[in-house]
């Protein structure tokens, strides 16, 4: 090259302004714009479906959190109780007393409705029996004025929530058109009202004919005991296995095989674990059916690979220089791992564990096979230990059970259950995020 050619490059290039795009640049700019547009469209689509999902869950599920009650001021004297107990149809006597009290309240409001005992039964169920049981259990309340909150039947509840209307109902033994006049009158008198549905959150499942009384509380307890089992088993086993594989195990064909299998296990459909649980825990080991203990064991098998994989990832993320430093001052391998590596990996391990637990909490398929689905969890377990072995349901299993029932009243409960389940899952994920933020990278 000569000096002149260095000064004026005459290699066929023309002086082009930087503001004028050539064809290639334009094409590249277009491609980039297109790609960004795809990304935005993809995210927008995802968000749209998410919003639709949440909107439908909330709109369908929120009504489950209110219930319709008839509250009547009622006083029963000792004398009245004795009289009622001496009649032949005892509950009818109580019903009559209740109807009298109801009539009195309606009169005070200046409303006049004709109704008979059958109508009350259609609206509120067997009122007499409820009152009788109450006073038998609480004799000290005799003579005192008490406000009875009696749950309205699910059809009346549906009438309030717009599920049932005068046009859609057919006269049946469950509800008649004329009953709705009574309901309207009670509403006007302020006797029938909608309140927050605590029994839904704290209660247990009810029979198939009583959607109004169904609650998710017992299955929350069932899920809680299952999660205890999962946590108590999968965290120590998973962490110990990962530490051994990651820090101590020799690298050979056998450990490679184990590694591949663990990764594969994480992808095994959960129903397969259900079948395994049925065969091993129930048919072979004769553990009780529908017990949270068995559910927990099955979910432990399912969660273990997740925990092992995330624990190994967080152990790997600890820089080797920390291990070298510990070994360099004469720590043994175990001291290096337990004093230095494990504390640094702990937030990652915890996050992985919580996410694994959240996954297990929402798992339904394996529970199908061990009898936790379709089971009517009518009450709470008797004690802490019984909580593991007494038949119970779990949240997702309960939701599935409700969704499969015929009565439309249960449909609403299923959606409400989904909201509760999502609240639990969100809480767990938020805890995981907080832990990760708090302990993030200290080296």
């Amino acid at each position, binding site marked *: 090259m000569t000096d002149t050619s260095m000064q004026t490059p005459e290699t066929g290039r023309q002086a082009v302004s930087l503001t004028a795009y050539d064809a290639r640049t334009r094409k590249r700019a277009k491609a980039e714009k297109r790609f960004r547009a795809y990304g935005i469209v993809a995210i927008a689509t995802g968000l749209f479906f998410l919003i639709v999902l949440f909107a439908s869950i909330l709109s369908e599920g929120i009504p489950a959190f209110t219930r319709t009650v008839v509250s009547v001021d009622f006083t029963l004297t000792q004398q009245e109780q004795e009289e009622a107990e001496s009649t032949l149809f005892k509950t009818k006597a109580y019903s009559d007393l209740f109807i009298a009290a109801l009539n009195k309240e309606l009169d005070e409001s200046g409303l006049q409705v004709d109704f008979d005992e059958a109508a009350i039964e259609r609206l509120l169920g067997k009122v007499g029996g409820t009152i009788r049981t109450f006073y038998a259990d609480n004799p000290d309340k005799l003579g005192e004025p008490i406000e009875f909150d009696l749950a309205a039947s699910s059809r009346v509840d549906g009438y309030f929530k717009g599920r049932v209307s005068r046009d859609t109902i057919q006269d049946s033994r469950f509800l008649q058109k004329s009953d709705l006049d009574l309901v309207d009158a009670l509403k006007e008198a302020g006797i029938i009202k909608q309140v927050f549905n605590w029994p839904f959150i704290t209660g247990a499942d009810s029979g198939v004919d009583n959607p109004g009384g169904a609650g998710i509380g017992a299955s929350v307890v069932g899920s809680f005991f299952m999660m205890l089992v999962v946590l108590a088993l999968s965290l120590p086993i998973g962490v110990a296995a990962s530490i051994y594989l990651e820090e101590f195990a*020799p*690298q050979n064909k056998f450990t490679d095989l184990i590694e591949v299998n663990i990764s594969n296990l994480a992808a095994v459909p959960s129903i397969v674990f259900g079948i395994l649980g049925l065969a091993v825990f129930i048919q072979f080991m004769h553990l009780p059916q529908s017990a949270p203990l068995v559910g927990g064991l099955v979910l432990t098998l399912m969660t273990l690979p997740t925990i092992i994989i995330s624990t190994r990832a967080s152990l790997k993320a600890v*820089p080797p*220089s*920390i*291990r*070298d*430093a*510990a*070994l*360099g*001052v*004469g*720590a*043994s*391998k175990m*001291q290096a791992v337990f*004093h*230095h590596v494990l504390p*640094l990996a702990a937030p990652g391990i915890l996050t992985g564990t919580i996410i694994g637990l959240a996954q297990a909490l929402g798992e339904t398929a394996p529970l199908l096979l061990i009898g936790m689905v379709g089971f009517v969890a009518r009450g709470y377990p008797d004690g802490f230990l019984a909580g593991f072995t007494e038949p119970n349901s779990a949240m997702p299993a309960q939701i599935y059970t409700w969704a499969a029932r015929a009565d439309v009243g249960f449909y609403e409960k299923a959606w409400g259950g989904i909201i509760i389940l999502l609240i639990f899952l969100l809480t767990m994920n938020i805890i995981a995020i907080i832990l990760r933020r708090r302990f993030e990278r*200290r*080296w």
Partner: protein
Amino acid sequence: MNDMSRVERQVDTNEIKLECRDCQVFYGDTHAIKDVNVDIEDKTVTAFIGPSGCGKSTFLRCLNRMNDTIDVARVQGSFKLDGEDIYDKRVDPVQLRAKVGMVFQKPNPFPKSIYDNVAYGPRIHGLAKNKAELDEIVEKSLRRGAIWEEVKDRLDAPGTGLSGGQQQRLCIARAVATEPEVLLMDEPCSALDPIATAQVEELIDELRAQYSVVIVTHSMQQAARVSQKTAFFHLGNLVEFGETGQIFTNPVDPRTESYITGRIG
């Protein structure tokens, strides 16, 4: 060449701390260190120089059996610390590493307080009977690491919050806290600026009074400044070993000459 180094040794009066004979290291099928014979003397700074990948760090890691942590590495030959074979089956590497301390290329303080960083070694080896003794060891080590004045008011602060040079001096303090007899340093200044490097070099010179120091370095100036003995490695071979002055001014092997004049490596 061997004859030459033997001649050189006669000049020296220090006794031999670590005697390495016919040392071989294999990484799987790769023969990383070939037939290396080196004598590390007591109260002397020995520098290992050579181009990247020549095996000097590998050889250094043999001296406190850090290569044990690498599954594929195999070490052969005889390494005698005060006449005892360190690769003897009865030797626990943990005890060996308490005697042969190590400082790494990248400052790697534990993500704990400055105090705990230094106290960790004495704690696991049970060197202190009580808190007062431990405090004393920590202060003494930090003073020897020439960092006491800078950190004495914030011993509870995390060691990772110090600057790079301070971190490296903290690591040196941590290494001397266990009272080692040999201190191995694997490119201790490669991540440091010239000022921190000067501080660490000064420190190495002071440490020579009590320890036998082995330092791997890429900087030939550094080797010339701090060491009394220099070993030049090339492609897994020990090319030349002798008095630092002689290696840098009058190398015997043509390869050494090419390297120190910048023609290879």
